[in-house]
């Protein structure tokens, strides 16, 4: 990545968020269309995009208002749907230690799965990445999401969208993130465990709470496996790194920057 050190913060953050912003537009449009179909006014769609800012939650709200679900039930469903955010905040916290409470509040308010993914990758690979850059990433993604929702709100029932296909933009983004994270062979273990345990627990619990179960079980298994191997088999093939086809190129760039 050819980052110039004199690049302004907003441009750096904008470049990092651009792929996400493009993915968010069609999905935001789909969410806006569904909310409009459910009876939400456009200004209400703007409010929900800004203050809830979660694809899953907005799709749930849309289907809940169509079926006339009571507000209390909707709130409870949303709470369980969003509980996984506890994991996101916890895993980013080590990068936000020096920030003020109001900053943490603003950061948490606009955090979701996707901008967390962008920020986690930046924090773990770019040592110049700051908490302020990360907050900008959240705001850029929020902007694109809200614009998408507004467009969807105005389109209303005029067009139909193939939701599973549009949603695959996010699946593709997470696939990219996992591929980037797989730097050591041992990480294949939590990946496999997460697939099996997450699918089983989401189906058994009939709720996205299963995602939390799958994530915690897989991460814990990976952590204990690494400790066990390091203590007993220091030369295990499992602890080796995975070849990165672009590694040499990236090393040369980072050397040139220094």
């Amino acid at each position: 990545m050819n980052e110039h050190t004199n690049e302004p913060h907003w441009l750096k953050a904008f470049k990092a968020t651009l792929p996400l912003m493009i993915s968010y537009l069609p999905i935001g449009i789909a969410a806006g269309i569904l909310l409009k179909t459910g009876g939400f006014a456009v200004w209400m769609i703007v409010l929900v995009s800004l203050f809830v800012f979660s694809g899953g939650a907005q799709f749930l709200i849309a289907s809940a208002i169509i079926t006339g679900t009571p507000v209390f039930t909707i709130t409870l469903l949303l709470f369980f749907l969003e509980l996984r955010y506890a994991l996101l905040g916890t895993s980013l916290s080590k990068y936000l230690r020096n920030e003020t409470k109001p900053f943490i509040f603003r950061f948490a308010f606009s955090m979701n799965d996707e901008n967390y993914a962008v920020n986690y990758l930046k924090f773990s690979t770019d040592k110049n990445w700051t908490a302020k850059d990360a907050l900008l990433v959240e705001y850029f993604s929020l902007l694109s999401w809200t614009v998408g929702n507004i467009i969807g709100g105005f389109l209303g029932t005029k067009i139909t969208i193939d939701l599973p296909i549009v949603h695959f933009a996010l699946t593709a983004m997470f696939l990219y993130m996992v591929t980037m994270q797989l730097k050591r062979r041992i990480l294949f273990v939590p990946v496999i465990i997460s697939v099996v345990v997450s699918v089983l627990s989401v189906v058994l619990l009939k709720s996205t709470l299963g995602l939390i179960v799958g994530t915690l079980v897989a991460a814990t298994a990976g952590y204990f496996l690494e400790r066990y191997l390091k203590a007993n088999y220091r030369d295990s093939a499992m602890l080796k790194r995975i070849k990165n086809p672009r590694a040499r190129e990236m090393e040369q760039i980072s050397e040139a920057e220094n």
Partner: protein
Amino acid sequence: MDAETKRHLMIVFFGMIAALIPRYFPMLFFTTRKVPAWFNEWMNYMPVALFTSLIAKDLFVDHSYHVTLGNYNMYLAALIVVIVAYYTRSMFLSVIVGLLSVWGFALLLAAM
């Protein structure tokens, strides 16, 4: 303000609270306290486990919470995304190629 608008405002307000609690309090807790080293090591496994979890739900669980192994277009597209991501390291290309291939394979499989 009519009853429907009021109901929608309540949904937005309570939705905001429901989303804010899990976003804010754990983050506040762990940024303001000293955490042991093992905790950070454990947290290193969290992103990969969480992203895989979200992918697995998209690929293998349908909207009525049943296991499905029938999203062939997604499986083929997912394979292509991983290959593109591994060789290009570009999120943008991965997403675009992913969208095009999931759509292309859906058309192709429907025509077969």
